């Protein structure tokens, strides 16, 4: 009988030098755990020829050197590795607090989000800052953490017309996700606040996959103090 771990795994050739391995097709903590364990396993036992890993919610894209490896060969190597997935120990999650100044010029979409859900600004802020979020993965641009588990009352679709430039430090929500933009990039998430925290500096990301995150509301004055620090 196939083990549950092996049974729910799907392999797909994504390009002539990458393989996509999926642990399901919806976000779940179980799939996330497998993504983390696979990353950890490949870190502990590197497979020669693997060049990079792009984790997602329930999958990992594995980029390899096509002169050294082929899809079939990599797939069979991974199938063997997957048997050990269960026994991989993950480090204890860190809890990272991110200060946020909500609303007004810091979060220009907060009024619209409140209107859509019939909430006051205080209620929306209370909801967003009351949860402990999980970093499902980092992607898009350096240091951008996809945080899942937004309270139902705040689940809001993306903007129909994305902004061409979102200022770095902007805290946004989209669907049931929330996150902080580390760099000035285009973006369609609704902006509800701004953090003075630097998400990516000197080649290090403030957040890593598996971290827990809490947003701590701060005043305009505190924002100014922290930004100067």
């Amino acid at each position, binding site marked *: 009988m196939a083990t549950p771990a092996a049974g729910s795994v799907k392999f*797909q*050739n*994504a*390009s*002539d*030098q*990458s393989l*996509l391995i*999926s642990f399901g*097709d*919806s*976000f779940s903590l179980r799939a996330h755990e497998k993504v983390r364990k696979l*990353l950890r396993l490949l870190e502990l036992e590197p497979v020669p020829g693997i*060049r*990079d*890993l*792009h*984790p*997602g*919610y*329930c*999958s*990992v*894209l594995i*980029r390899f050197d*096509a*002169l050294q490896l*082929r*899809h079939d060969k990599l797939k069979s190597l991974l199938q063997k590795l997957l048997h050990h997935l269960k026994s991989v120990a993950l480090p204890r999650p860190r809890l990272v607090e991110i200060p946020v100044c909500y609303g007004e010029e810091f979060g220009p979409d907060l009024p619209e989000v409140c209107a859509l859900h019939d909430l006051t600004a205080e209620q929306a802020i209370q909801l967003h800052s009351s949860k402990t979020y999980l970093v499902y*993965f*980092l*992607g*898009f*641009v*350096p*240091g*951008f953490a*996809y945080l899942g588990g937004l309270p139902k009352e705040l689940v809001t679709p993306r903007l129909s017309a994305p902004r061409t430039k979102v200022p770095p430090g902007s805290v946004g929500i989209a*669907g049931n996700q929330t996150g902080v933009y*580390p*760099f000035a*990039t285009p973006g369609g998430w609704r902006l509800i606040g701004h953090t003075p925290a630097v998400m*990516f500096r000197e*080649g290090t*990301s403030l957040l*890593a*996959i598996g971290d827990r995150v809490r947003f701590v509301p701060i005043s305009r004055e505190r924002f100014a103090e922290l930004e100067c620090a």
Partner: protein
Amino acid sequence: MKSIHVIAPGLLTTVQDLGREGYGPMGVSRSGAADALSLRLGNQLVGNAEGTTALEMTLLGGTFAFPEGAVIALAGSDFGATLDGEAVPLYTTVRVREGQTLQLGSTRSGARCYLCVQGGIQVKPFLGSGSTHLLSGLGGFDGRPLRKGDVLQIRHAAGSVRARRLSPKVLKQLVPRKVLRTTPGPQSDWFSKSSIDAFCENIYRVGEKSDRMGIRLEGQAVISKREGDMISEGVSNGAVQIPPGGTPIILFVEQQTTGGYPKIANVISADFGSLGQLRPRDEIRFEQVGWNKARALLLEQEQLLSTKCLVVE
């Protein structure tokens, strides 16, 4: 130490090498030269390791003074280069004497020209690479394109370089393609057979908003047969994604590491160099090939790049 003084930077000139690898879990994509083939060949001609830092110029080249001289090679597209007024051939080792000035103009062929120098451009490596990541302002020369007045240091290189040039026969085989070969994408099954056929028959125009992150195409829309969003997943270089509007975007060297749009196809690795030479308004087409063919084409290209392709002058 030898140096390059930027008298005019050109339209968009950055320091690039072959990019950084292994930082995908932090959301950092590879970056590096948009046409890695040209960068590798140029570096070979000046006796450097293939992945040495060089200057990547885009559409309009710059003017550079070499107060202490240097050994250089230009690779990629023809930007009408002159050295103190004398034409400089592409894919040839050139000795620049002390005080000479290299001037490049507008492109006469593709989008990018590489200026490789013996020793390479000295920059502080960022996550293991000297390449510039423009979006985040990291790596390369202060994380930004060159400006007038910048002074670049050339890394010291021991020994002399034999003057060589690339064999015209090899060069002919490496001419950038306008018919890009692809393998199926992970969401090919989101598209009907007729959509995929149309995707391969359509002529697309390269949009003005294309950059190192993505090549935005204009032309007939391709519509997915599935409704709703997909869950964000890792994406590969050369992925052809279809956003809701239906006009394809080819993810390029400074790509996002993950994305939520379905991918109908992926440009094969052997054609990545051609992607780097596409200019706005160029017309392109896609052609599907099998996995084995894609691999064979890559092996063939690597064989060509072996040093035998360089002929001594």
